[in-house]
């Protein structure tokens, strides 16, 4: 199976589990089995690569699958599979299949939770698989982070109920993220070093290049030490190495299947994987050895000691996992190749016995409600199968012959024995102590829980039989693997995956008791058993360690609290009032312009600006501008909202006249129509706000915010200053924009031939050295010259809207539709007091009551102006509106008006109906015209029209003459029509704009939208 497919499947499964109707398609046990089967298929698919990898192992063979994305930038999705990734891939999919099955039955009582859990678990499986299959360090990093995120969700799975789950999730996430930050810096540095070694520059992140680099050359690079430390930091945090180990026991608040899978078998081994993966290019230095061996061995000891202090079975297993992870890291640090071999064997053995133990603990908790050693005992009579499983797994963990853990421990000791280092003996002694403690911990799990009589009665209830399937399989694995080794199967590609050397793997040392490793491990077993027998003598003393004044978790808490304190200071700057944010933004923006002005001398612009002598038109235009400003000023000082709205309308109309004088007929028409609608809109809204509220607000209009304290309208003065500052800045900004370009009144010379100007703009240095960009090459000239021959229409503005910049327009009508729906949502649903965003529920609820009693009575339907005459007018206007709209669309290509004007005109006509007939009647009479349908039709048509050109092999939004394609082009031309993409787009603009306008008016015209039981807005 293709690696890309293998990688995708878990994500697809997670997605299917995420969507209720999809997962509900299969009943619970069936979907559990299907998911398990699919994961199992992935195991088989990966095993399919085994023969190839085995055959090519000595030459470090690998499978590289490249899916090119942007080959020009050498960006591609690469998968890389060699012995190491295959080993991890098999662990992830194999244990994953088992965990999937276990999860399905573990959550049998609460399928909903189970499905949610399964979704995250499968998403994690995909991410983890991605980490080991990624052929590129950056891709690997992204998936590495994804494992942290999914792990966060799984640890905090019960965070809704338990605070420690939330804390554990956060702690794990923050710690691994800090490590990941170090890691990404290390990766980028490594990429640049690799780039300088291969290409003479740039970055290289592809694994098949990185792994073949000259390790000696890298070790000599000045960044080498930093890279090793940063990468190791990433690996240490992920793999819970001292002093970051404490997140792993904290993560035990995850449901047990997650603990077994993520926090024992796979994710915590990602750090180990990373170190093994980068071993070939990075291992050649003393730093590598000393860093990894010291941290690894220390972690091993600490994990083994703290495991014994735990009475919680999961905590115990978590610390013993920490210990095992330490041994793997230390082994990868060893400068001899036996270390790598031992690490691989340990990974396999650990995944088998530890996952089995975790799952057994999960079942114990499921069946008895407890996982505390002190509360449990004598479980062998209740769960005979699990007793066997735990016995085998514990013995494998202790390293007893003939279980696979024994092989692992022998190879581990062998690796350290072959390490010729002055500190070798010390390290070996520490390892022996850790091994002894691990034996004692293992026996505690088995004996105290299964054999020793229970201290008190246990409330036992049985679990589904299938819950035992996975632990049994894993325990069988612990045995079967060593049998396989006994028969000479040595998992060649896994062992020599990183180093090109043939290894041997023996079940029993050939020299028997003369073998030092065998002696040490036997001694550790006996001592461990003895220590267990005498545990009552020393365990209470050791348990005191739990009460250490300094623990990692406490330090972490203090650190986070400190960060919070800093956050509080920052928060004080965040007043929560939009006004202050606006003030900061405005001042900052205008200061930027002022700063530019200080450099460029703003006065120089006046020279340009004054160079044209005033004509008659200039005076008219200036008059309109003055009128606009004066009206705006009156709207500001006017206390009455209604008059303010009307004077504001005068501003809008004056600007419409400016557009007309430009001349910009299309724009002017839309401006007039929309301004009218805006005025109607604000009048309607004012009708919905009670007189008292408006008066209250008006009366305080000039009372500054600080007046309470100072008695002086300081706020108003401040705002005048800010407005002045911003206004002048905008003034100079506009002057600069207008005068640093060459505006021409010449006729466009189409003979020049226009290429899009942005590409062609030459950049020249004038004598003063500044850059001059001649702006006369506007793309507008291209539009002017080509509209007729390319689109067959004469209105250039319409052509730009509907064709040249159609993508813009499409997005804008979507925005408009969304805004209209937003109005609807806010005014129908948003008013509901059940809105979760409503602040201070109790207080607001009282206000709501108050409102219902008093204010509602005061509001009158401001829109009822029905007289026979107005009704007649409304009818005529609507009929006329349809005619105008039709003509605007059809002739829009050659005359003023287009979809926007058509939509705005009809919107206006409809809003007149609401004003004249009142809400209910207008709604009744216009029942056919439903704004939702108009919006939907408009957006669907626009999108379809954008996509249709693909059928003609053209790009999206290209121009297509549908008429010519159907064969009616000539016929249509007779009547002066053209059936093209442009026309269809105009129709879709019209429908959307009309629907949007109508939706807004309809919603706002409703006087008591939220209060009417039969309101269509409630639907």
């Amino acid at each position, binding site marked *: 199976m293709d690696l890309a497919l293998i990688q995708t499947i878990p994500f697809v499964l997670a997605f299917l589990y995420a969507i209720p109707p999809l997962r509900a398609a299969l009943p619970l046990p069936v979907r559990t089995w299907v998911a398990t089967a699919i994961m199992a298929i992935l195991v088989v698919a990966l095993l399919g690569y085994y023969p190839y990898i085995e055959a090519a192992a000595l030459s470090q063979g690998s499978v590289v699958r490249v899916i090119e994305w942007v080959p020009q930038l050498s960006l591609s999705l690469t998968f890389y599979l060699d012995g190491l990734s295959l080993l991890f891939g098999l662990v992830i999919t194999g244990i994953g299949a088992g965990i999937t099955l276990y999860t399905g039955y573990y959550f049998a009582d609460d399928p909903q939770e189970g499905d949610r859990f399964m979704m995250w678990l499968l998403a994690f499986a995909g991410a983890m698989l991605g980490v080991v299959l990624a052929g590129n360090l950056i891709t690997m990093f992204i998936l590495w982070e994804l494992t942290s995120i999914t792990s966060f969700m799984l640890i905090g799975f019960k965070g809704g109920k338990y605070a420690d789950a939330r804390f554990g999730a956060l702690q794990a996430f923050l710690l691994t993220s800090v490590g990941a930050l170090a890691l990404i810096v290390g990766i980028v540095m490594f990429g640049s070093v690799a780039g300088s070694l291969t290409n003479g520059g740039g970055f290289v992140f592809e694994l098949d290049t990185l792994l073949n680099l000259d390790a000696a050359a890298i070790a000599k690079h000045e960044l080498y030490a930093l890279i090793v430390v940063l990468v190791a930091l990433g690996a240490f945090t992920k793999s819970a190495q001292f002093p970051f180990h404490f997140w792993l026991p904290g993560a035990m608040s995850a449901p047990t299947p997650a603990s077994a899978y993520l926090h024992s078998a796979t994710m915590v081994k990602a750090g180990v994987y990373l170190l093994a993966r980068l071993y070939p290019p990075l291992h050649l230095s003393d730093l590598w050895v000393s860093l990894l061996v010291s941290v690894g061995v220390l972690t091993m000891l600490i994990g083994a000691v703290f495991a014994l202090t735990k009475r919680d079975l999961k905590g115990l297993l978590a610390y013993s996992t920490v210990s095992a992870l330490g041994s793997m890291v230390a082994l990868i640090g060893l400068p001899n190749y036996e270390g790598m071999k031992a690490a691989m064997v340990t990974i396999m053995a650990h995944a088998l016995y530890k996952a089995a133990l975790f799952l057994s603990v999960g079942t114990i908790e499921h069946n008895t409600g407890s996982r505390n050693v002190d509360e449990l005992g004598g479980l062998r009579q209740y769960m005979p199968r699990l007793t066997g499983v735990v016995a085998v797994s514990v013995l494998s963990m202790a390293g007893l012959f003939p279980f696979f853990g024994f092989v692992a421990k022998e190879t581990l000791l062998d690796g350290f024995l072959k390490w010729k280092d002055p500190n070798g003996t010390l390290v070996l002694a520490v390892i022996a102590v850790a091994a002894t403690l691990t034996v004692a911990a293992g026996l505690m799990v088995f004996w105290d829980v299964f054999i020793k009589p229970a201290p008190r009665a246990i409330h036992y209830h049985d679990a589904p039989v299938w819950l035992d399937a996975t632990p049994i399989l894993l325990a069988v694995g612990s045995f079967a693997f060593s049998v396989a080794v006994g028969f000479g199967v040595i998992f060649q590609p896994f062992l020599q995956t990183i180093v090109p050397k043939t290894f041997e793997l023996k079940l029993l040392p050939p020299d028997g008791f003369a073998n030092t490793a065998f002696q040490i491990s036997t001694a550790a077993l006996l001592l461990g058993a003895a220590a267990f027998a005498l545990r009552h003598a020393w365990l209470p003393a050791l348990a005191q360690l739990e009460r250490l004044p300094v623990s990692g978790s406490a330090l972490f808490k203090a650190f986070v609290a400190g960060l919070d304190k800093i956050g509080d200071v920052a928060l004080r700057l965040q007043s929560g*009032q*939009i*006004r202050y944010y*606006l*003030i900061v933004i405005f001042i900052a923006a205008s200061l930027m312009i002022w700063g530019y002005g200080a450099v460029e001398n703003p006065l120089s612009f*006046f020279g340009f*600006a004054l160079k044209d002598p005033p004509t008659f038109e*200039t005076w008219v235009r200036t008059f309109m501008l003055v009128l606009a*400003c004066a009206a*705006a000023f009156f*709207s500001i000082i006017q206390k009455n909202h209604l008059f303010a709205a009307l004077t*504001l309308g005068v501003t809008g109309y004056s600007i419409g006249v*400016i*557009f007309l004088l*430009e001349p910009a007929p*299309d724009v002017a028409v839309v*401006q007039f129509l*929309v301004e009218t609608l*805006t005025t109607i*809109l604000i009048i309607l809204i004012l009708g*919905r706000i*009670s007189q008292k509220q408006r008066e209250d*607000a008006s009366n305080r*209009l000039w009372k500054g915010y600080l007046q309470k304290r100072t008695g002086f309208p300081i706020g108003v003065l401040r*705002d*005048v200053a*800010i*407005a002045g500052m911003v206004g002048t800045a*905008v*003034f*100079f900004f*506009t002057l600069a*924009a207008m005068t640093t370009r060459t505006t*021409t009144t010449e*006729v*466009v010379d189409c003979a020049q031939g226009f290429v899009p100007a942005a590409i062609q703009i030459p950049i020249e240095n004038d004598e003063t050295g500044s850059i001059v960009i001649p702006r*006369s090459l506007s*793309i*507008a*000239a291209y539009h002017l010259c080509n*509209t007729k021959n390319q689109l067959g229409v*004469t*209105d250039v503005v319409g052509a*730009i*809207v509907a064709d040249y*910049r159609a993508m813009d327009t499409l997005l804008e009508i979507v925005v*408009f539709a*969304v*805004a*209209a729906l*937003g*109005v609807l949502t*806010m*005014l129908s649903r948003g*008013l509901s007091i059940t809105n979760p965003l409503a*602040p*201070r529920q109790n207080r607001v609820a009282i206000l709501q009551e108050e409102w219902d009693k008093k204010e509602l009575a005061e509001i009158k339907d401001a829109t009822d102006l029905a007289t026979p005459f107005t009704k007649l007018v409304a009818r005529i206007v609507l009929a006329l509106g349809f005619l105008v709209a039709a003509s605007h669309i059809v002739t829009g290509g050659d005359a003023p008006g287009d979809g926007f004007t058509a939509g705005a005109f009809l919107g206006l006509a409809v809003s007149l109906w609401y004003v004249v007939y009142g809400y209910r009647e207008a709604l009744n009479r216009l029942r056919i015209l439903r704004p939702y349908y108009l919006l939907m039709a408009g957006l669907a048509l626009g999108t379809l029209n954008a996509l249709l050109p693909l059928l003609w092999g053209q790009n999206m939004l290209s121009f297509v003459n549908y008429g010519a394609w159907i064969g009616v082009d000539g016929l249509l031309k007779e009547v002066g029509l053209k059936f093209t993409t442009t026309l269809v787009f105009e129709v879709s603009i019209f429908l959307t704009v009309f629907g949007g*306008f109508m939706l807004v008016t309809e*919603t*706002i015209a409703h006087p008591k939208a939220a209060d009417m039981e039969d309101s269509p807005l409630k639907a």
Partner: protein
Amino acid sequence: MEDLAMAAAIGTLFGMGVFQMLRRDLVKAAMGFALLFNAVNLFILSTGAYRGASAPYTTNLADGKATSDPLVQALILTAIVVSFGSYALLLAMVNLVSRRFNRIDSDEVKELIN
């Protein structure tokens, strides 16, 4: 001269819009946005590269007449409609605040929330 008048008007309208936006009366603040929209549209118009006296139709061009800049007009055309949408949204929000808090004074609403 014309440029100067235009720039002055744009600056004035923009400044007044900013002043309005900072009012505690939410209706007035919403009106400030309307002023800003107008000022920005005028600004876009003023950046046009062509200052002909006839409308941007290819027929005018064929007749040898200088036309105004079609590109900025197309930009404004869509901007006007979208401004209306945002303005309606703002006013709906004001309406929402008025219903929920029985006030349209932002400072008082703020006191109610805290």
